[in-house]
């Protein structure tokens, strides 16, 4: 049974870090700078700060459920409506998974290997993810523990060697356009970085050893991930300037190309790609694991493993269908991503909390 897999709070924290900054570290700076110009770093701080409210919301949902989101659905909404809502919840998870896979393929074909067809990246990356998910949550968590120090080490190197390139003129004047552009940028940031964390509720209280420590590691993981995001966004504004940050599709990658220490230590942007691929791997694996577990819980399957291979096939073909090119990806994401994620990541958990509160009130009323 898949429910027997348990990971330690520390491993869960690392997974939260990877999930928070996963795809965001390379794509978010550009969109933030588009809305907020030189104030993108303020928007990032605002976004991470507001995000703590959402993390708190998810933790309280986890506390009321004591198990997975799917079981809470069935408990609160009844068997069939609960199953229907769980089935709807697959949408945000799978759309997120497809988005991550698209970012891998698009990044590799546009920046590193332009002559290779995008399908080959999709298939190879999905093959590794399928392998990891078939081995189970515990194996994934241990792999993340091994790779995390490497990831931090490379990240710190990247940030330190960028210090000589900083120009403080780029962030001046601060708050030139007022608060509104910064707010909309912060909202976009929330919808990409924080709100997808709702997906972790499919594994959070059920697969993590101790609930109390699990809550703390959720907070710490989010804090670390948020700090990593704030630093990288601030650096990309300080090094590239708001204009170039907006124009580059992957500004952090362009920024890494600027590293030059004594004309010797230069062109290390592959480091950035390495960091990004590690975090994307865990983000996609978690999304994929959440999808598979949700499907198997809805149909009361004893084992989720048989679903992994065919769902991997669907993932590959769907990412070719869903995002035929990067222009379509950007325009459609601007058109629907924010309200879509607000529905899945804010309104839906709030509804669950409201219902469980209602149930508790009714129960105590009946007792009297």
């Amino acid at each position, binding site marked *: 049974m898949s429910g027997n897999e348990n990971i330690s709070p520390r491993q869960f924290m690392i997974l939260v870090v990877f999930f928070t900054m996963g795809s965001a570290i390379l794509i978010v700076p550009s969109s933030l700078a588009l809305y907020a110009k030189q104030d993108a770093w303020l928007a990032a701080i605002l976004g991470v700060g507001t995000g703590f409210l959402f993390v708190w919301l998810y933790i309280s949902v986890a506390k009321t459920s004591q198990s997975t989101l799917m079981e809470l659905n069935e408990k609160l909404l009844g068997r069939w409506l609960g199953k229907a809502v769980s089935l709807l919840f697959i*949408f945000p998870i799978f*759309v997120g998974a497809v988005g991550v896979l698209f970012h891998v393929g698009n990044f590799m074909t546009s920046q590193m290997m332009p002559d290779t067809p995008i399908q080959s990246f999709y298939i190879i990356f999905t093959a590794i993810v399928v392998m990891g998910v078939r081995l189970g949550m515990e194996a994934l968590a241990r792999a993340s523990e091994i790779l995390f120090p490497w990831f931090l080490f490379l990240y710190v190197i990247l940030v330190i060697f960028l210090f000589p390139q900083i120009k403080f003129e780029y962030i001046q004047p601060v708050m030139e356009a007022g608060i*509104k*552009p910064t*707010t*909309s940028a912060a*909202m976009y940031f929330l919808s990409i970085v924080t709100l997808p964390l709702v997906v972790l509720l499919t594994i959070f209280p059920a697969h993590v050893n101790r609930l109390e420590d699990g809550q703390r590691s959720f907070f710490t993981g989010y804090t670390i991930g948020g700090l990593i995001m704030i630093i990288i966004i601030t650096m990309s504004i300080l090094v590239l300037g708001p204009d170039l940050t907006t124009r580059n599709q992957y500004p952090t990658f362009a920024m890494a190309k600027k590293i030059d220490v004594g004309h010797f230590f230069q062109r290390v942007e592959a480091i950035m790609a390495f960091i990004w691929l590690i975090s994307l791997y865990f983000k996609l694996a978690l999304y994929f694991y959440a999808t598979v577990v949700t*499907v*198997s819980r809805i*149909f*009361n*399957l*004893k*084992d989720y*493993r*048989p*679903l992994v*291979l*065919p*769902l*991997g*096939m*669907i993932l*590959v*073909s*769907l990412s*070719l*269908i*869903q*995002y*035929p090119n990067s222009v379509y990806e950007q325009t*459609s994401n*601007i*058109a*629907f*991503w*924010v*309200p*879509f994620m607000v*529905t899945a990541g804010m309104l839906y958990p709030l509804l669950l909390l409201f219902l469980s509160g209602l149930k508790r009130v009714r129960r105590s009323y009946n007792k009297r």
Partner: protein
Amino acid sequence: MLKVLGILGVSAAMVLIEGPALLKKGLKKEMFAFSILLLIGAGMSIGNALQLNVPNPLAGLVVLFKPFSDFIFRLLK
């Protein structure tokens, strides 16, 4: 045609990997879910390989959520 054959080959390999264990344990429900998902996956892949017009689920989501998105961003302009 080669692409379709390749997809069918991959699907056959998946059946070979998962099938024997499922048969031995006699997990009927799992077998059913596996075959349905495999059918959907193979169908989508073949449709995509033959460049048929497979409907894009994202288009529906865009139609559904675009008014809200426009509203939010107009509010903050």
